[in-house]
């Protein structure tokens, strides 16, 4: 009779413990109660009101953009409602000279980082002027993961320049399955480059739930493979998102290498304006608990109790925002349509002989 062989490894135990060290950072809980007074002490009243205004601004932007989109006045748009804390909290931690590499849902951060709403609308419609913003940033990246490898390169470039700046980028939960996401974090780690990778985990990649992306208990633990520190944060808590991003930036810019942040958030609506219908793959019962912890409601409750905010203040600010968005779309309407001859000129600095011929052809056509 064979005796029971002794095992070298307890895989069951290892599996059960994977990712258990990650617990979301939180400052203000879903009941709008402060859970960490020491961290809360980092924020002045003005700062708290500023975060509230940014959340309100982003929600108003979302609503107005959806309206314009329904009216056919905008093109591609990826809704952002529900993600205001994750987006406004993190982006507020970065400075103007930091280099932003956004994904397609990260237009609000791009605007906060220096692009105008008019430019964002032109990007949505598909016009080159939408990409000619003054912000130190790339336009929203459509190829999921590409921004991650590019972030490693930008971060290394900033480091070589000796700049007091970081590269920061965003992707979603689905994006963590891409090879480029791993390569980007791993390259940044290998070069100890100042990058902050922000994973906005909103639970879904179009219709595919987060659990189908990976067996990993958290997305934050994926950074372990790159040898870089990572953290999970309550993505519906704007203060926690800001605090974590700020500390990540400080860590990276001090020469300690990159950081990855996973924000736990939720997409309240459709994946995009291009006909996605979340009722095909989500139930009301699944959605409701997330609607209940709306970052807007949480901050409103907290600040109202502190007498720093009122409904009247909010209503008038929403009105102000919406008016500015209406002005922005009017400005976008006034932008000249693109010409083919310009597109050809934009292809190479010194046009190739075949492009030169095509420029001449199109200029002749355009002058008629």
């Amino acid at each position, binding site marked *: 009779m064979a005796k029971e062989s002794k095992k070298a490894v307890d895989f069951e135990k290892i599996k059960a413990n994977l990712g258990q060290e990650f617990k979301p950072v939180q400052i203000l809980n879903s009941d709008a109660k402060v859970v960490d007074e020491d961290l809360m002490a980092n924020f002045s009243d003005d700062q708290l009101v500023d975060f509230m205004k940014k959340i309100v601004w982003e929600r108003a932007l979302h609503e107005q953009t959806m309206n314009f989109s329904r009216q056919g006045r905008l093109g591609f748009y990826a809704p952002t409602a529900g993600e205001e804390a994750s987006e406004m909290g993190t982006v507020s931690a970065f400075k103007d000279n930091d*280099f932003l590499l956004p994904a397609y849902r990260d237009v609000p951060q791009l605007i906060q980082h220096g692009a105008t709403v008019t430019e964002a609308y032109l990007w949505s419609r598909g016009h*080159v*002027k939408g*990409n*000619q913003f003054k912000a130190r940033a*790339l*336009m929203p990246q459509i*190829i999921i993961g*590409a921004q*991650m*490898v*590019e*972030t*490693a*390169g*930008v*971060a*290394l*470039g*900033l480091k*070589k*320049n000796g700049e007091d700046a970081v*590269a920061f980028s965003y992707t979603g939960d689905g994006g963590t399955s891409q*090879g*480029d996401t791993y*390569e*980007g974090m*791993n*390259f940044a780690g*290998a070069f100890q480059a100042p990058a902050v990778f922000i994973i906005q985990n909103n639970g879904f990649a179009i219709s595919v739930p987060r659990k189908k992306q990976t067996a990993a208990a958290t997305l934050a633990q994926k950074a372990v493979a790159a040898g870089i520190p990572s953290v999970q944060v309550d993505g519906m808590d704007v203060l926690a998102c800001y605090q974590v991003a700020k500390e990540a930036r400080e860590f990276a810019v001090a020469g300690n290498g990159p950081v990855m942040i996973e924000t736990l958030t939720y997409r309240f609506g459709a994946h995009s304006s291009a006909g996605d219908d979340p009722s095909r793959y989500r139930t009301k019962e699944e959605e409701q608990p997330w609607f209940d912890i709306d970052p807007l409601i949480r901050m409103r409750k907290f600040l109202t109790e502190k007498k720093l905010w009122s409904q009247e203040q909010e209503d008038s600010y929403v009105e102000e925002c919406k008016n500015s968005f209406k002005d922005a779309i009017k400005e976008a309407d006034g932008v000249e349509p693109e010409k083919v001859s*310009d*597109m050809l*000129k*934009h*292809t*190479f*600095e*010194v046009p*190739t*002989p*075949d*492009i030169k011929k095509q420029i001449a052809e199109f200029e002749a056509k355009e002058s008629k």
Partner: protein
Amino acid sequence: MAKKSYIQAITDGLDIVLNEDPKTLIFGEDVGKNGGVFRTTQGLQEKYGEDRVFDTPLAESGVLGLAIGLGLTGWRPIPEIQFMGFTFEAVDSVAGQMARTRFRFGAEKNLPITIRTPFGGGTHTAEMHADNLENFFTGIPGLRVVTPSNPYDAKGMVISAIENNDPVLFMENLKLYRSMKDDIPDEKYTVPLDTAKVVQEGTDVTIVAYSAEVNESLKVAEKLAKENISVEVVDLRSLSPIDTDTIFASVEKTHKVVVVQEAQKMAGVGAQVASEISENAIMSLDAPIARVAAPNSVYPFAQAENVWIPAADDIEAKVREVL
């Protein structure tokens, strides 16, 4: 002036630009201390330091993503992809990203990146090392694709490629690396990126070729000269854009043309050359445009390269057909 191989000529060119422009950076797999798997970057890290010439992790998409990011922050990257077959891993970085950066920004930004990569058959490499993948890249707007056929051009073109402010894919032929030597000026010189060159004057028939097939074509020209057949050989040098003026001028003189490539026939550079001639210079022709290319199979296993790669005999047969 010294006799130098194709590899040494490229090393020379890299040395010159590293010395001249402190913003140039060479990086890739094994390009640093090891000096590259073919010794093309031999001695450069020692001379310019690890900040300028450095190894990367083994990930092609990462390498070219790194190049894009460095290019966006003011650097002039010269990344290497160890073998062209591995560019598949990084096609988005080239086609989806760097080649369209200038366009995306409406000419407000350029990416001055030169991707160096070896390719080409005849040296019995393992799978995915020798594939002629230029067909993939010549269809990408915003990307120049060039390939020298001799050491002199290799040095002049690598310098031009690096100095160019748009992305260039610089293809280096494995078989040519050590098989020929040219007299190379020691000092800096450049060879234009978008001009073909008549490497053999002739009056009876034009052969349009590039890379290693230029040498095969020159063998044919030499052989046929003994029969008083005068062959003109045009080396394309640039595969995107194609210098049609030089081709048309030759065809107007010889009235017959054979287009030669090592790559498979389908959708290749030869097809582009043939269609340019048929669109613009058909009235100059006395015979149909002929093409010599590899069969439309996957690139052969090493032992079968000799029956698969188009060689001088195949070119000679086609030339006799059109004559």
